[in-house]
């Protein structure tokens, strides 16, 4: 029933920032994050007529689209570059000077470290800290709620070790 559905603009305003942060933690560049975020909401806007709230939450639905868009982005552009950065342990470049002022500098390095984790660990951290429940994270990563918790905790430990290695 169409009239039961929340207007898309409300969804857009509520989730734009969270989706952007999720994508930003994946790709490590604000310009790419903007492009992918735009793609996510364009796709969501087109597909909203088919969204059924009884099957999933709006958050899980949007993050699924975001995850797919991010994976598409890597497939199309960045896989090789990401791999190079990971191998070289380079800090992720920030190409957009205006973006620096708008992101808290002290957290950029942390998100850069998240971006260098293996794909599922990166997703587990990003989805969880974007506000999804472990059940929703599990559904998106196609595993159980318990497995999602386990994956997340391993990911945080791996991140901690990466941060410690960096500071040595």
């Amino acid at each position, binding site marked *: 029933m169409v009239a039961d559905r929340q207007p898309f603009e409300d969804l857009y305003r509520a989730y*734009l920032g969270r989706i*952007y*942060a999720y994508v930003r933690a994946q790709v490590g560049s604000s310009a790419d994050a903007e492009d992918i975020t735009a793609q996510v909401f*364009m*796709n969501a806007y087109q597909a909203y007529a088919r969204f059924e709230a009884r099957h999933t939450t709006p958050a899980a639905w949007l993050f699924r689209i975001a995850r797919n868009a991010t994976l598409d982005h890597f497939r199309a552009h960045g896989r090789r570059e990401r791999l190079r950065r990971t191998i070289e342990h380079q800090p992720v470049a920030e190409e957009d000077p205006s973006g620096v002022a708008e992101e808290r500098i002290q957290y950029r390095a942390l*998100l850069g470290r998240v971006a260098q984790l293996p794909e599922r660990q990166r997703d587990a951290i990003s989805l969880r800290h974007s506000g999804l429940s472990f059940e929703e994270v599990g559904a998106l990563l196609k595993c159980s709620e318990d497995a999602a918790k386990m994956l997340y905790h391993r990911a945080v430990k791996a991140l901690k070790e990466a*941060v410690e290695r960096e500071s040595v």
Partner: protein
Amino acid sequence: MSEPEDLELEALQRQLDDAFETTRPRAGFEDELWTRMQAHRPAGTRLRDAWLGLVQGIREVPAVPMAAVAAVLVVVLGAGALVYSGLGRGGGAASTAAGGAESAAQPGAAVSSLGAFGRLPSPALAAGATRGPSSAQPGAAPAADYAGLVALKWTGKLVLNMGTAPVFRYQEPSTNAADQFATSLGAILVSRPAGFLGSYQTTDLSVRVRGTIQSPVSEPTFIILPIASVGAIDAAGGPADLALVFLAEHSLAPSWQYTSDAVSAGDVSKVTLYRQFGVTGYGFAYLVDGTGQRYGLEVDLKGGRPTAATGPLPLSLDSAPYAIITADEAVRSALASAPAVAGSGVPTATLTTAELVYSLAVAGDHSFYEPSILFSGTFTVNGTTYVKRVLVPAVNPSQRSS
């Protein structure tokens, strides 16, 4: 796990919470993206939003454009002075080809398999401009439309030997893509005004880039205006040559196939490079707007100096072949687009020419250049001769979503 390690992990989790909570897009991105989405949303979505707004009474929604729902639109163009040259014929003057006239493919287009883009939206046709492409005087007022009923008759000959024609697809450009285009011109970002992806400047030019517009339908476009008077172009030849030199100097010469045409009045000239798409078994088909007018890249000149240039933003195109209707089916569709009229007093337009053309169909984050058949003819009412055009989507109806 030791207690200190637990505390360290909790601290890291708090940092992650803060990092995700405080990482947000730049100021203005939210409204900018929303504006883009509004500009690109399909007619059905607008209609549903309008209905929701009516039911809930809490949200204002722009009106649904009548033209957006038409599958086949008849455009009647009034022409006090009959606009004819260029219709269904060779068009303008010299022709240049990035891919060579023998090449049927759009240069640079990645080719996919038959029907690879899925069901396609029908071209978003809309009545609007009434200028003829090759006789319009710069600054001339458009002729009036004929608003009455018109019956149709077909006396021409249409031959379509090919069973398929390519559909070309582009992805909606981002601000990043617009910035890259501007950078290639040596321009720097000034602002992102509403309705545009960006506004840029070089030392002597002002550049604006906007995305796809749904009504009247238009692809992503750049607009270039001199900030100060740009010097006269040092080149021999007519306006078309001057325009091409100007475009080449700024790396704006099109990579697509075109024919050129120049119209002058006094020291003012408008040069248009009409865009074409290659079709195996047919040749080159012109790109037309929602009124059936050919269009492409325009350069305005005054006294040999460029005063403006407008054209499609260079975008990479994918292409996929689609089955198209037969000539007979196209003619039947064209004739069926006229309302059934009985009795006397209703003028009859005699459609005498038909050609394969391409028109833009807007569909969210991807839009399509699709083949269509453009029928043209004339009729006379009260001593005034009008041009009538009928545009029929050529992609087989089984491959169209609307």
